[in-house]
């Protein structure tokens, strides 16, 4: 062994640290959600979430500034487009006043209709941080088990649009897995045909809806809502029925003629989301 002792001790150190990591991976993998390591993880989140909340409050303006800079060309184009649109809409405004009144009445009727459904109790929460890695689509919210937020509770945005569900709850904060997370799968229903399918996340890309009957007529723009039932082994029956998931953006060409695949663009813009509602009580459970 002609190795200098420093190089040798570095090698021993690395072997030790790698073994330790492998042991951690194995232990955690076997224990799942209830093991002591998962508990430690919750403790870590409990400790860091107040800090995240504070930093988030301080740095939001800075973050907004930089993200605005990055999107500047898009914003300029957007401004042009909006200016044209304003001119166009102003000319239409006159005729729409009466229509608007009618719409208002209908909307109120709709709200009443919705409130007549299953008694749903919700809790508003603010997003204080988002997931740590590029492979996870999660949010941390500032409400936890002390406010009644528990694992598996559905999370929606205003206007009854689906955001995701709680995957981890600590005393004062909770982690929400978004429907765009690759691990997420939701039972969805096409509004027009009433056909059901499985909507799964694909990260930055649109959601994908599979297991749709081939004979179904699907068109882009059609709305997809939660079906509110359980597909054994695939999707949990977490969500109450009738929550908007998104609209069909594309019907994929059929490669195999057993099921139809459509892509669904989510109803919620996750990058601008700030306040969400956690559904506490749910008649279907």
């Amino acid at each position: 062994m002609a190795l200098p002792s420093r190089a040798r001790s570095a090698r021993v150190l690395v072997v030790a640290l790698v073994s330790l990591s492998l042991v951690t991976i194995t232990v955690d993998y076997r224990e799942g959600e209830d093991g002591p390591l998962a508990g430690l993880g919750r403790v870590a989140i409990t400790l860091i979430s107040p800090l995240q909340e504070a930093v988030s409050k301080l740095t939001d303006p800075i973050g907004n500034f930089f993200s605005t800079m990055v999107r500047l060309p898009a914003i300029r184009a957007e401004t042009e487009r909006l200016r044209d649109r304003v001119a166009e809409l102003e000319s239409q405004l006159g005729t729409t006043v009466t229509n608007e009144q009618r719409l208002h009445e209908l909307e109120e009727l709709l709200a009443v209709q919705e409130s007549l459904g299953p008694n749903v109790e919700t809790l508003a929460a603010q997003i204080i941080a988002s997931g740590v890695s590029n492979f996870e689509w999660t949010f941390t919210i500032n409400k936890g088990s002390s406010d009644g937020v528990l694992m598996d509770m559905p999370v929606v945005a205003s206007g009854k649009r689906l955001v995701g569900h709680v995957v981890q709850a600590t005393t004062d904060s909770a982690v929400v897995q978004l429907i765009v997370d690759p691990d997420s799968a939701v039972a969805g229903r096409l509004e027009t045909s009433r056909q059901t399918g499985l909507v799964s996340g694909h990260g930055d890309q649109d959601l994908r809806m599979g297991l749709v009957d081939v004979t179904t007529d699907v068109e882009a723009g059609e709305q997809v809502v939660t079906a509110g039932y359980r597909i054994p082994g695939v999707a949990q029956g977490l969500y109450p029925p009738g929550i908007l998931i998104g609209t069909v953006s594309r019907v994929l060409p059929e490669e195999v003629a057993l099921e139809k695949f459509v892509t669904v663009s989510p109803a919620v813009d996750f990058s601008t989301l700030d306040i969400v509602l956690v559904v506490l009580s749910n008649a279907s459970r």
Partner: protein
Amino acid sequence: MRRFFTLTAVIVIALLAQTTVFADVRLLGARPELMYLLTIVFALLEGPSSGAISGFAGGMAQDFLLNQPKGITALTLTLVGYAVGLLRQYIVSPSPILPALMVAGGTFGGVLFYGVMSFLLGQFDSTLPYLLRVAALAAVYNAILTPLLYPLLRRLAEGSRSQKVVRW
């Protein structure tokens, strides 16, 4: 002792920055991987042992905030820190862009390794092109951040070095 506190503080700050400030500042949909940057810069400055230790500590810290098997990031970053530290001993270039290049290469390799590990453990189910895209974007992003953070981290590392040891 001072090193320990410096490292802890730097890791906590990096985690906070990663989940708050940089959560909004995305480049074509990807975020920077600050913990990778930190590990690689420490490995460049302090050698393979320190690189491996800071990688392990930072990786564990990040893992415990993730809702998946803990230890994957720790494993990745231990290896990244050690590899970069070793590689550094064979490169004598005084080029000022060397740190940025090393950070880009290390991040790319590290994120790929992480993705493959997650895939093997059944945690991450996506296509290879997507993984390559994320790794490349994170590498570019980290390389851009390196000139900003490298001087700061170097000052911290040098300030925390034990005074009794004579180095040459």
